[in-house]
């Protein structure tokens, strides 16, 4: 088994709305695969079909080499976007419950829940009710619940939304740890920076259709060359530069796309006169740029 997940022509309709339209995809084992797309693109629906919470109207899904997704549920770990805990259950208790639902024996589930809580600095909270946890702590508990049974394939739906930087870092490390152990991670996000940092592969979906799919590098190279700069000064200058077709200006950093035949060196000279330039490099476009171009929105100028 070299693919953790195979989708072939998967389609899902909600009444007249086609939420996922003939999507095919292969996720190799041991990879981190990012599902990108705007809101309503079909990311969550795709993930729910992989988890066999929804059934596809057409197409086949093979998860961990098995054509019957129900049969492999115990080997999957899933963190939905809409997630929560039973308010009245104790923290260790609910973790053990999740583990037992995944087929773990009661005793092992209990000791494992406590060990994980200790490892993640929540040991003192093991016997408290989950309603007493702060938001960040309950996010941690939910992630532990997803990983407690050592799933071979981990699927995280928008794991970074609403997290502070410390917890973003934590989730990122968890994802990398899973990969290091040779297991596979799929996560959906619309925070391009996160995807850019850790993804091996990118899957971009828009209006239910696959738009881009491949390694991070392939996806980025599919766009046109860009010049990335870091600067201080009035960014309005950038828009008036000759030879520049488009600008993605983020205030302190910017991405410039040249018109055909324009000379980057001439541009640099012009810039140095008007702005304080800290960095100037030529490279493939950012994921952000690829994303915006692909989903048809205009790069905000």
């Amino acid at each position, binding site marked *: 088994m070299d693919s953790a997940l195979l989708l072939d022509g998967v389609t899902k309709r909600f009444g007249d709305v086609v939420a996922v339209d003939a999507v095919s995809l292969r996720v190799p084992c041991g990879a981190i695969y990012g599902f990108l797309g705007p809101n309503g693109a079909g990311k969550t629906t795709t993930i729910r079909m992989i988890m066999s*919470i*929804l059934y596809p109207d057409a197409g086949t899904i093979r998860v961990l080499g098995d054509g019957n997704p129900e049969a492999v549920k115990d080997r999957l*770990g899933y963190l939905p976007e*809409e*997630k929560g*805990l039973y308010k*009245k259950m104790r923290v260790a208790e609910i973790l053990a*419950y999740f583990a037992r639902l995944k087929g773990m024996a009661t005793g092992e589930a209990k000791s494992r829940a406590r060990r994980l809580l200790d490892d993640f600095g929540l040991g003192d909270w093991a016997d408290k009710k989950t309603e007493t946890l702060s938001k960040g702590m309950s996010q941690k508990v939910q992630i532990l619940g997803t990983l407690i049974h050592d799933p071979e394939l981990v699927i995280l739906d928008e794991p970074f939304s609403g997290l502070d930087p410390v917890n973003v870092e934590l989730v990122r490390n968890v994802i990398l740890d899973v990969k290091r152990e040779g297991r596979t991670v799929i996560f959906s996000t619309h925070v391009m920076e996160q995807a850019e940092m850790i993804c091996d592969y990118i899957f971009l979906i828009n209006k239910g259709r696959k738009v881009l799919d491949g390694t991070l590098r392939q996806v980025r190279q599919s766009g046109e060359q860009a010049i990335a700069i870091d600067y201080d000064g009035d960014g309005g200058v950038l828009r008036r530069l000759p030879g520049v077709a488009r600008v993605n200006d983020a205030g302190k950093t910017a991405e410039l796309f040249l018109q055909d035949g324009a000379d980057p060196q001439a541009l640099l000279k012009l810039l140095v006169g008007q702005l304080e330039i800290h960095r100037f490099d030529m490279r493939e476009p950012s994921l952000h740029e690829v994303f915006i171009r692909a989903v048809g929105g205009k790069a905000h100028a």
Partner: protein
Amino acid sequence: MRRIFLVAQREYVQNVRTKGFWIGIFFFPVLLTAFIVVPQLLERTKSARRYAVVDQSGWLLEAVNQRIAVGDLQLALDAAADRASSPDDAEKLPGPLRAAASDLSALTSADRMALATALLRSGDGADLSPQARTMYDAHGDALRSWWSGVSRDTLRALDVSFSFTRYVQMTAPSGPDAAAAEALNRRVADDDLFAYFVLDGDPVSGVGLSRYVSKNLTDEDLREWFGSLATNEVRERRLEREAIDPGVARWIQTPVRFDVRKVSAEGAEESIGERDMLRQWAPVVFVYLLWISVWSVSQMLMMNTVEEKSSRVIEVLLSSVSPVQLLAGKIVGIAATGLTMVLSWLLAFFLATKYLPGVLGASPDLPLSTIASDPLLLGSFLAYFLLGYLFYAAILVGLGSVCNTVSDAQNMMPAFMLVLIVPLLAMVPIGRDPNGVLAQVLSYIPPFTPFVMMNRAAGPPTMFEYAVTTALLVVSIMIALWAGAKVFRIGVLLTGKPPKLKEILRWIRAPVGMVPVRKEVSR
């Protein structure tokens, strides 16, 4: 199966830990105890009613007082007769009663009444029956002198409801009637007196009115008690005046009497007792209990589902269990919770009826405790609890799954109440006529079947009716579970406004796995 069991186990453990569960467990026994204890306590704490009588006839009050005394003496004689069988109790009786106790117990109650009359009224006991006559000759003088000198405390020790424990006569002021009435009115106003009577000057003629004056017109015990004694006395005087033999008069007044009997299931005629009357009405108690438990337990399931949705834990669960497994686990887990509650209620009912009266010093209420352990009633109660719960649980869990907040769910309740109120309204009519048309028709309507069939247990319905209604109910339960599961599958993933009924019906018709139009589902 393992997953269903895990979900059920969690539901059970978590619910049993809630305060609501324990309140539910204790609610019924406390209510039941209150039902048994409070009336008795009220009866005991009811203070004696003080009253006064202005007698314009000059003789009626004295005659009534004598009748009161005869009644009390008869109570004392009856108490002695009752206790004669137990040496310990007999030992505690005051002197002459103790001596006469065993002889008294040999007399009939009518003889004891005649004896009491003979002892207190002038006469030599000539018209007594031979046994009473012997008794009169042996103990008459001793009893009469004991009674004339006995203190109220001695009598109270007998623990019999003598008239003076309930009604105490005060002396009325003498003097002109108008002034006396004014003084009495003030005493009634000041709560010094409960009421006073003004007896008509010539009650025998039946022309004038006597008066009863009180502040409290709802408690009529005093007026009825005193009035009937006075009426009896006046009747006797009328008979005397017209020279009619009292025996003839009694005979004329004897009503047509019925020996009420019932026909058993086998067609044999049997005499009936208190137990049969209770049996007739006991199902009503069980219907009420059934109604409360089915309703509260299936509502518990609904609220649980809503809570799972509003806390957003449901999708996490769905990554491990299928919606149908989750549904089955929840239904089983809450059923176990409900059964625990109901069984503890039954146990409490059984224990309370059996032992509580004993604790209170009253004799155990045997008919009630046999009903609490009647296998037909208990068996059908448990069976109909489970069937009724499954039916309503299937529907409520489906509806609960489409709600996102508790208030969404509460908005749906009034419609359910409209349906569920029917068996409650029909409870008394069906109890009165367990095999009537209303009872039969309602039995075949599945939402009402559990309650109505329970209600009819006194009938009881025929085996055929049991079989057909149960089959109908089971089929409806399967349909409800099937539909509930389909709604649940879609509903649990739904956010936003709850769908309209029309939309839910469309989900039920759609094939499994299809999700008919619903924007929020896609995201």
